C-alpha cells in the first residue's frame, strides 16, 4: 500500500532501488563502489547488507559491466548498473549502441535486454571537462534505447522503477547536484507506472517552454519572474526523452504559438534541435520564431566563473522568453 515519506533525491533513488530488489528477485544492482561503500553519492547505502550478493561492487571495467548486463538481461535477470558519470559511458559506448540496442531487434524479438543503466550527468562547480558533460542527445539518436531524466524526489523514485520494469534497455540520467537536495513528500509503494509522459509545471498562454534536467529550476525561476509581469507560460518538463511526449508539446505550442527549448547540453546537435524541428515540420502556426537556450557549444572549464559564462542561466532563459514573447506580440 502506498505511503508518503519525506525523501531527498538520493533517498528516493535508494528507496526505488530497495523496492526493485525487494519485489523483483530477478534484479541485480552493481557498479563501482555501489555495494559495500553504498555508492560514491551514498545512493545505494544499505542495499548490499539487505540484499546480499545481488548487490555487488565491480572492477573499473565499464565495458565488462555493461556487457555483463546485456548477457544477464537476455537470460531473464534485470541488471541495474551504475555508471558513475555519463562521461564514463564513452569507454563502453559499444555495449550500449552496438550490443544492448540490437538484442531485441536483431533477434526479431526472440530475446531482449531489459537492463537499466543508472548514471548522472551535468556540470557542478569545479568539475573538470571530463566530468561535466550532458550527453543525452547521443543516446537519443540510438533507436532501441529508452532514456529518462528525473529531477524531483518523486520522479527519481517513480521513473527508476518504471525503467527497471521496462523490457527495453533504459538509461536513467540523474544529476549529482540534486542527490543531497531538500527532502520532499514522496509517495512510495504505489503502482509502477509505464514509461513515458511529461510534467506540466506551469500553465500559460503566451509561450511554451520545453525543458529537461536540473536546469528546469532555472526555467521556473525565469518563468515566475515573467508571470509576475503578467506573461503566462506553459512549462513542460520532459522527464522521459524516449519515449518523448510529442503530442503534449505539439498541443501546447498549438495553443501558445511560441516555443523555447532549454537544456544544459551543447546547443548544436542537442535534442532541443529535434524538438524545434518537429514543431517546424508540424506546420503549427507560430507567432514568433522558436528559440533554444543551451550550453554555448564548448568544452566545460573547471573554474566556476568560466563554466557559468557558457552554461544556461536563469537570465538567459528570461531574456530568451522576453524576446520570444515580444516577437509576434502584435
Amino acid at each position: 500500500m502506498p505511503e508518503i515519506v519525506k525523501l531527498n533525491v538520493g533517498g528516493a533513488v535508494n528507496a526505488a532501488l530497495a523496492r526493485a530488489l525487494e519485489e523483483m528477485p530477478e534484479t541485480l544492482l552493481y557498479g563501482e563502489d555501489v555495494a559495500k561503500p553504498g555508492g560514491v553519492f551514498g545512493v545505494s547505502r544499505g542495499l548490499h547488507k539487505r540484499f546480499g550478493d545481488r548487490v555487488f561492487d565491480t572492477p573499473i571495467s565499464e565495458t565488462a559491466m555493461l556487457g555483463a548486463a546485456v548477457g544477464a538481461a537476455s537470460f531473464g535477470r534485470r541488471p541495474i548498473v551504475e555508471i558513475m558519470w555519463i562521461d564514463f559511458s564513452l569507454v563502453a559506448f559499444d555495449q550500449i549502441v552496438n550490443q544492448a540496442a540490437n538484442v531485441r531487434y536483431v533477434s526479431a524479438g526472440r530475446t531482449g535486454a531489459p537492463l537499466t543503466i543508472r548514471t548522472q550527468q551535468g556540470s557542478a562547480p569545479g568539475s573538470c571537462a571530463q566530468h561535466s558533460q550532458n550527453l543525452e542527445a547521443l543516446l537519443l539518436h540510438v533507436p532501441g534505447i529508452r532514456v529518462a531524466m528525473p529531477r524531483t524526489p518523486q520522479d527519481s523514485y517513480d521513473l527508476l522503477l518504471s525503467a527497471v520494469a521496462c523490457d527495453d534497455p533504459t538509461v536513467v540520467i540523474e544529476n549529482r547536484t540534486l542527490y543531497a537536495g531538500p527532502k520532499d513528500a514522496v509517495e512510495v509503494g504505489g503502482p509502477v507506472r509505464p514509461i513515458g509522459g511529461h510534467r506540466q509545471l506551469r500553465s500559460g498562454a503566451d509561450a511554451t517552454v520545453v525543458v529537461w534536467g536540473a536546469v528546469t529550476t532555472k526555467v521556473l525561476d525565469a518563468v515566475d519572474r515573467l508571470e509576475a509581469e503578467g506573461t503566462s507560460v506553459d512549462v513542460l518538463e520532459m522527464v522521459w526523452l524516449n519515449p518523448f511526449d510529442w503530442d503534449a508539446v505539439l498541443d501546447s505550442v498549438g495553443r501558445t504559438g511560441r516555443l523555447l527549448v532549454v537544456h544544459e547540453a551543447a546547443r548544436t546537435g542537442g535534442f532541443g534541435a529535434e524538438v524545434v524541428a518537429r514543431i517546424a515540420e508540424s506546420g503549427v502556426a507560430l507567432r514568433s520564431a522558436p528559440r533554444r537556450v543551451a550550453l554555448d557549444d564548448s568544452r566545460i572549464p573547471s573554474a566556476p566563473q568560466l563554466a557559468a559564462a557558457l552554461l544556461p542561466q536563469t537570465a538567459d532563459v528570461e531574456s530568451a522568453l522576453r524576446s520570444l514573447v515580444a516577437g509576434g506580440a502584435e
Partner: protein
Amino acid sequence: MKLDDLLAMWRIRALEEKIRDLRLEGSIVGSVHLSNGQESVAVAACSQLRPVDAVYATYRGHGWAVARGVPPREIFAELLGRVTGVNGGRGGSAHFSAPQHGFHGENSIVGAGAPIAVGAALAGRFDGSGRIALTVFGDGAMNQGAVAEAMNFAAAFSLGVVFVCENNRYSELTPIDDMVAQPDLSRRATALGIPAVRVDGNDLAQVRTATRLAVESAAAGRGPSFVEAHTQRIVGHYIGDAEQYRPAGELERDLELEPIARLTRELLAEGVPTEAVARCEERARAEMDAAADAALADPLTDPATAKDHLYA
C-alpha cells in the same frame, strides 16, 4: 565415434562451401566470413556443452551454430533473408543468434561477445540453471580491451565462463605475431588468475579434454578457464580476400594440418573403409544442398515487418 566427428566437421565444411557458392552466385549478399579449417574446435568444444549452456561466437560463427545444433536450413535462410531464417534475415551472416539452440549469437564487434558471455554466466549464478557460458574469439581479439576486462571480471567473481581463443595466426590480413611481443596469448589469462591451456586445435581429443575440464570447473563454481586452440583458416578472412599475406607454402602446409584432412588420414590408417569415410562428405553435402534448396524456396521476409521489435 571418429566417423561421427568426421561427419560433424564435414557438415560445417559443406555448409560453408555451400554458403560460398551462394555468395559467389549472388544469392547471398554482403561480407561473409567462413570457418573452413577450424571446424574441429567448434565440434569438439560444443560436444562438451549441455543444452543449458550458452555459446557466444563471432562473425566467423556459422560452424559454432551448426555444432550447437542450429538447423542448417535456418542458417541458409538467415543469410538469404528468408522468413525461415533464425532471425528472419535481420542478423545475416555475421550477427545471427538462435537462443533456443543455446547459440546466443555471433558478434561483429571484435571482443564484444566476451563481456556478454560473462553476463550469461552471472545470470546462471542466480537463476539456478547451472548454466555456464562459452565465448569464442580470435587471436586478434585478445588485443581488444573488452576481452581483458571480461576475463578479469569473470576471474574476480569466479563466474562460469570458458574463454576459447581460436588462434588462426591472423587477424584479418595481419599476422598476430606482428601485433604482440609475447606470442603465447594464454599467459594473459594466467596473469589474471585464470587456468589456461594451449592445445592443438586440429586435435579433437585435445580440444575435448581442455573444454571438458573447463566446463567442469565452471559448473563446479571454480570460475573461468581459458583455452587457446591453435588452428588455421584455409580460406580467406572473408569471401574475396586475395590472401596476399600468406607466405609461400603456408596454405599447402595448412591443408595438411587442417582437421578434416587429418582425421581422414587417421581413419584410413586405422583401416576404416574408404567408402565409410567418403560417405561422411557425401552425406554432409547432400544435407546442405537440401537445406539450401529448401531455404531458397522459402519466402523472403516481408519488408512490412522491418520495423517490428525495435522496442518491447
